[in-house]
């Protein structure tokens, strides 16, 4: 199958780019330095209807296709990776409900998410269960007409600022993580929920990465997603789609770094000429540009397949995230190199972009996990049996 | 067709505006090329009594459109009646009032319009104008198309012509013929609010010291005021400084503010973005002081000083004072 970039996609890109250049980019350095969640930019994005792009119109969303959603994330990430997490995580937190929720659950929660009035987050990871999702230990004990959640989660993006969480916990500990996990919608205003601390990080420092504690948090039956035991499947289906948001983020970070490097090199003179006139620098810029473009087009190809509900979706989304994350790290590192000493100091944005890029190789499935997923698909296509 | 050169002579508060004297001089120059007379269309309070004195600046005749202070466009019907004899050109000041009245004449009489022009002349018996277009990157020469109605309207910025004495001492004054009724006359000032402080008209200043974002505050304008005072000039600002409330809006120079043409413009802490540049690029001498060596203003200034304006501006004021005293 092929995909098409339409005039609507171009228009969306132009609009978001204008907003990002005028309102988001000027705030990026401050957000990073102060490690503060940009509530003002969240309000701006909500007002511009940019937090509702994955929701249906009947819930107040704009139901954009997945390529358009990727373009939105890309253009924001080009200005600031932290801010791009706002639409990314809004979708990540809502995906379990989108995939497994009932119409009643969607009607109850989606309007507030689409309008940006509420923020959502996805609470799967635990201190001892990162790549190994099945090692989750948090419990959801059935007590008549509700469940009681006990345990804690770690490294939950926006966990401390979200109003709604999609949480994964064991309803049947004896059955193990794969078969005994269930998914729940939890409103963070519920008694017993806490977000005691956030991490100090290398990058995306304005995005709160929180530890969450659940101490006897009660969740009604109406807030369970799907059947008991379906949690692992829902989590995997969510990640199969949400990792595309990270791919788009990585493409945006890379583009921002490339643009900054070109602008600097065109201005800076050494040895009697512009830095950009040195062939060696041009070669670096060419590699940065073509690799970013390859990552971008792979991301769009994967996005098209999400909308086409392709059978081999994980092959595409994992490939996109794998390639884009590595490209972002390489391009931002090269951007710092192009700026030389100036690339290392905070007066220029590329050092922040390099620190921000690293996370795209780590969260929503490390690059190593992505490689396992792609390898499994490669072997399946070749008719080679795989273990486990 | 008449070879006269008409011009709008605005009066306010009982005296001629500086634009009236400048345009009188310009009209007289053109009239000497065309072989016609310079004719003033005078309006505003003081026009009736002051029109004759325009002769000292080159006007042969003056037609009084009215003697009240009201929006200039309300004088359009009278101006139409006065301009019915035609002429080669009608010079209008490129001020809001002047443009509105000129625009009305263009609309009512289907007149060709040029402007703002950097030069005008009569060539081969016809009007020829020069304008800087495309943000000053191209100089265009233009003429009215053959058979176009007359006169051609020519917008003129302040300081394009320098008022000079010339011609017979007094202009022959007449009242405008009766004018048609027009809805244009229905605009009127319903409320007037004076500011506490009088603000200099930057458009007429010959020396301007302007401050921008780099001045970083209302107090920052102090050294600029001192320098302006020492040079006998006025203080202006970029939009950034006006938006921040550091100086009144009337002192903003730029695309949406005043367009100025001083012989000396000193910009301190101003980056020189295009929106500001179009307001001052025709200044004769441009000096810029900025701590950013790559500020765009450095590309088109005549003299670009890289440094801290808070050190250099006071030092310059001191140096000028010293030289005056010596």
């Amino acid at each position: 199958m092929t995909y098409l970039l339409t005039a609507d996609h171009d228009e969306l890109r132009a609009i978001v780019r204008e907003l990002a250049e005028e309102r988001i980019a000027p705030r990026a350095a401050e957000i990073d330095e102060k490690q503060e969640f940009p509530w003002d930019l969240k309000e701006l994005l909500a007002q511009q209807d940019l937090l509702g792009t994955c929701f249906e119109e009947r819930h107040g969303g704009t139901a954009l296709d997945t390529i358009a959603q990727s373009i939105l994330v890309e253009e924001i990430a080009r200005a600031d990776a932290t801010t791009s997490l706002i639409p990314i995580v809004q979708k990540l937190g809502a995906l379990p409900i989108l995939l497994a929720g009932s119409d009643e659950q969607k009607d109850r929660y989606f309007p507030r998410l689409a309008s940006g009035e509420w923020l959502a987050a996805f609470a799967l990871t635990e201190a001892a269960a990162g790549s190994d999702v099945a090692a989750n230990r948090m419990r959801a004990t059935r007590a008549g007409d509700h469940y009681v959640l006990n345990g804690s989660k770690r490294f939950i993006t926006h966990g401390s600022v979200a109003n709604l969480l999609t949480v994964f916990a064991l309803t049947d500990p004896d059955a193990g993580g794969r078969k005994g996990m269930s998914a729940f919608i939890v409103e963070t205003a519920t008694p017993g929920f806490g977000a005691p601390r956030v991490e100090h990080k290398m990058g995306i420092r304005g995005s709160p990465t929180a530890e969450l504690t659940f101490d006897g948090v009660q969740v009604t039956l109406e807030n369970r997603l799907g059947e008991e035991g379906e949690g692992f499947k829902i989590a995997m289906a969510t990640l199969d789609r949400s990792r595309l948001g990270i791919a788009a983020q990585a493409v945006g970070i890379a583009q921002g770094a490339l643009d900054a490097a070109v602008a600097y090199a065109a201005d800076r003179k050494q040895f009697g000429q512009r830095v950009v006139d040195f062939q060696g620098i041009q070669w670096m810029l060419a590699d940065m540009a073509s690799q970013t473009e390859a990552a971008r087009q792979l991301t769009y190809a994967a996005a098209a397949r999400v909308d086409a509900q392709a059978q081999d979706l994980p092959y595409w989304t994992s490939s996109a995230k794998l390639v884009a994350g590595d490209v972002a790290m390489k391009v931002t590192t090269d951007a710092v190199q192009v700026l030389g000493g100036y690339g290392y100091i905070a007066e220029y944005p590329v050092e922040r972009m390099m620190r921000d890029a690293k996370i795209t190789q780590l969260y929503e499935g490390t690059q190593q996990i992505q490689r396992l997923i792609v390898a499994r698909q490669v072997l399946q296509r070749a008719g080679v049996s795989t273990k486990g | 067709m008449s070879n006269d050169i008409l011009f709008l002579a605005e009066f306010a508060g009982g005296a001629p505006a500086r634009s009236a004297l400048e345009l009188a001089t310009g009209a007289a120059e053109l009239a000497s090329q065309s072989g016609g007379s310079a004719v003033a269309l005078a309006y505003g309070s003081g026009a009736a009594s002051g029109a004759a004195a325009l002769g000292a600046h080159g006007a042969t005749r003056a037609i009084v459109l009215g003697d009240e202070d009201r929006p200039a466009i309300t004088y359009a019907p009278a101006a139409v009646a006065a301009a019915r004899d035609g002429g080669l050109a009608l010079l209008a000041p490129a001020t809001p009032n002047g443009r509105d009245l000129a625009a009305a004449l263009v609309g009512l009489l289907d007149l060709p319009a040029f402007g703002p022009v950097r030069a005008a002349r009569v060539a081969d018996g016809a009007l020829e104008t020069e304008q800087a277009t495309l943000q000053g990157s191209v100089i265009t020469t233009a003429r009215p198309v053959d058979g176009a109605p007359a006169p051609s309207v020519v917008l003129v910025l302040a300081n394009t012509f320098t008022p000079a004495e010339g011609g017979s001492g007094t202009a022959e004054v007449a009242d405008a013929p009766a004018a048609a009724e027009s809805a244009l006359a229905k605009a009127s000032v319903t409320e007037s609010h004076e500011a506490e402080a009088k603000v200099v008209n930057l458009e007429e200043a010959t020396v301007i010291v302007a401050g921008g974002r780099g001045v970083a505050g209302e107090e920052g304008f102090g050294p600029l005021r001192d320098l302006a005072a020492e040079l006998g000039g006025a203080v202006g600002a970029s939009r950034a400084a006006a938006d921040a409330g550091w100086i009144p809006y009337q002192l903003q120079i730029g695309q949406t503010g005043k367009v100025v043409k001083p012989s000396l413009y000193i910009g301190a802490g101003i980056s020189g973005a295009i929106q500001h540049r179009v307001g001052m690029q025709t200044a004769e001498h441009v000096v810029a002081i900025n701590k950013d060596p790559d500020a765009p203003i450095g590309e088109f200034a005549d003299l670009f000083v890289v440094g801290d304006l808070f050190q250099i501006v006071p030092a310059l004021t001191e140096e000028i004072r010293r030289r005056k005293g010596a």
Partner: protein
Amino acid sequence: MKIVVCIKQVPATGADKRYTDDLRLDRTGVEAIINPLDEYAIEQALRLVDDGAVESVTYLSMGPDQAAEALRRALAMGGDDAVLVTDPALAGADEWATAKVLAAALDKLAPDVALMGMASDDARGSLVPGAVAAVRDVPLLSYGAELKVGDGSAQVRRLAATGYDWIGAPLPVVASVTDQVGEPRYASLKGIMAAKRKPMETWSLADIGLSADDLRGAALTRVTDTRPPEEKPPTERIENLPAPEAAARIADWLAARKLI
């Protein structure tokens, strides 16, 4: 209460612009935007809608087919519908011809207020509002920092040399506003999507009762020559000097030019 906002599509600020061989402005291949000063007129009209003073806002533009993009972008900010007047006879139109055409279109739309920005990025004459008012025989309220409407009249607050004045006239009026109106709003995503469904009509000269002859070739002036500006001597620079020395050098420079 109905407002028509006249907008113009212009080449993007800073885009490469030049004259063609036949001395017309070359607009091909250049990114086009809503004239930035017209955005303030749009914003002013939409604020009056937000305040409940105005019920409907229509956008009007004269231009080639491409100008429909500018109208869609305006509709994305708000407003109800749009009209594009386009005709091959209008190529190269000057401010006079523009005023004639807009005036005829406005007479057909018959708004209470015909609102414009104070100038266009490319033409710079600021003559269109006054000329339109004159052709339509309607009062002009120009250079407003703010526009108010109600009770059969409209007023603009205009900054004067000292302080400000309110200038008013009975409806209908032609008005123009400056950037003092306030920051224009961004088009929201829903606004952009809704704009695609809002009605846009295209009118030719015949639709507004004008003929090509009426417009005398669409311009009363013609460019006879273009040339680059006079070579300026390169910028002199003073750098890395302590302030007193820099000041002395500047003073020398000024003295050499008899400025002090």
